[in-house]
């Protein structure tokens, strides 16, 4: 017996072969998983990628150093600011310039607002994946306010394209500071509701505790980063390890878990939201006066050589590797995306679990598929 794709439905060993996706609500995008099942137990998982591969690396080879940055907003669209920041920093490294002090603070503020809003969306979707519909609406209540701030200053809600080499594209909107303060007040007031809705919920705990275990050694070997690795006790926050844009002057804690299961990853992200708020509150009244953009030439040319920049997005470590041959566009660009490596550990986490647990594992890795496919 075979399915429409011509694959056998039952293997010779008696294992069921099922396809999840590419269009499936719990994969958060067009991810296709082929799963071998013994009853309800997962025996093998094979991710099939590339449904939205846009070949951003190839495209960048024919774009200028100003233009290629904008394509990266479409990679991890929930961390668009931080992707742009990584590219801007890599170009700045090549040009041996730095963003102005005012731009650096604006960049950190925007990056942390992005991280906060990304974690909020993840929190809502995790609830949705595990059968709790209400959290989604609560998460969007504050997320919308953050998106409005982004729209006011950057002119876009999702693909902001705000960071440019040398600083940011425009100065912040006059309303920016007081609106951010208002939103932070609101988020802090409502953050306990997040805990009341999901964290202590018995059904939620039973579905996530002890599920999808990832050991510390495996997390490093699989190249996992971000909350996925930190829940297993791997210290990997680039903001602490290789500070950029003045993160060394900001006070915050790197959140580390020990359990390495879905619940651990959940708790790490919940704590990271509080840290992001903490960072924003430190900086929002201390934006220095001055230029928002350093002076750069119209046509940017990087000297011959290689430049590598690592940043911490909401999902983990993003690496931008630029190889320059001295021309006005990069010779080769590689994006080492956090989701690509995190996804490679999915099979390891899911083996031996029940099929229903796969949804919990996928949603706590917090996959964004355009970032996997690029």
């Amino acid at each position, binding site marked *: 017996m075979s399915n429409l794709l011509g694959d056998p439905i039952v293997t010779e060993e008696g294992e069921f072969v099922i396809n999840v996706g590419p269009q499936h609500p719990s994969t958060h995008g067009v991810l296709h998983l082929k799963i071998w099942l013994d009853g309800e137990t997962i025996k093998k998982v094979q991710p099939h990628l590339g449904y939205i*591969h846009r070949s951003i690396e190839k495209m960048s080879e024919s*774009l200028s150093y100003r233009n290629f940055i904008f394509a990266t907003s479409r990679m991890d669209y929930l961390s668009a600011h931080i992707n742009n920041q990584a590219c801007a920093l890599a170009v700045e490294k090549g040009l041996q310039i730095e963003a102005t002090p005012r731009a650096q603070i604006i960049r950190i503020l925007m990056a942390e607002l992005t991280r906060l809003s990304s974690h909020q969306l993840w929190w809502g979707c995790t609830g949705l994946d595990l059968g709790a519909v209400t959290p989604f609406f609560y998460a969007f209540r504050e997320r919308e306010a953050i998106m409005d701030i982004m729209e006011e200053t950057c002119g876009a809600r999702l693909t902001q394209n705000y960071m440019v080499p040398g600083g940011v594209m425009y100065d912040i909107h006059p309303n920016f500071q007081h609106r951010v303060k208002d939103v932070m007040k609101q988020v802090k007031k409502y953050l306990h509701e997040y805990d009341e809705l999901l964290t202590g919920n018995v059904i939620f705990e039973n579905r996530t505790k002890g599920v999808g275990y990832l050991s510390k050694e495996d997390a490093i070997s699989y190249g996992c980063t971000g909350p996925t690795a930190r829940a297993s006790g791997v210290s990997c926050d680039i903001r602490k390890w290789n500070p950029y844009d003045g993160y060394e002057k900001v006070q915050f804690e790197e959140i580390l878990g020990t359990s390495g299961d879905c619940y651990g990853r959940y708790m790490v992200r919940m704590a990271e939201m509080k840290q992001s708020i903490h960072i924003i509150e430190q900086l929002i009244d201390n934006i220095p006066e001055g230029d928002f953009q350093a002076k750069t030439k119209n046509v940017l040319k990087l000297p011959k050589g290689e430049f590598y920049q690592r940043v911490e997005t909401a999902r983990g470590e993003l*690496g931008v590797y630029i*190889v320059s041959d001295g021309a006005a566009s990069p010779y*080769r660009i590689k994006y*080492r995306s956090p989701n690509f*490596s995190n*996804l490679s550990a999915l099979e390891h986490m899911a083996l031996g679990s029940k099929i229903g647990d796969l949804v919990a594992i996928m949603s706590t890795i917090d996959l964004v598929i355009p970032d996997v496919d690029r």
Partner: protein
Amino acid sequence: MNNDELKEAITALLPTVTFDETGEFLNALIGSEDLLPLMKALRSQTELHFDYLFCLTCVDWKDHLMMVYHLLSKDHKHTVVVKAKITDTKNPEIEAVTGIWKTANFHEREVYDLFGVKFKNHPDMRRILLDEDWPGYPLRKNYVDENMISL
């Protein structure tokens, strides 16, 4: 370890290695045939202990292909970039490092998909992003696509 100590340790493992320190990291340039024994030693020796492969990619320099491995040690906090030169651009081949770092599995499949480098002893050598029957390897400099419009 600082860069000089790293250079000494790596030269002890592979005398033919050459170094390039012009960039941000220490670059160790080797031939593709020396890759696997060196990588195994870099991972397993306690004073080096490069346990985290944070980037694996390839660069097409037209007359040769360069495999680039960014390695970091979580314990010792030192970094090295190993570059393995593949001279045969028609049938590029190199040993897989998937057995040493599991993250290499997906990254090597990506390099195979976009550059056509075959990895020997890789457990699952299939294309990862493009279709199995896609003609050519898009990130190679000699790749021609008639539908591509240059801006």
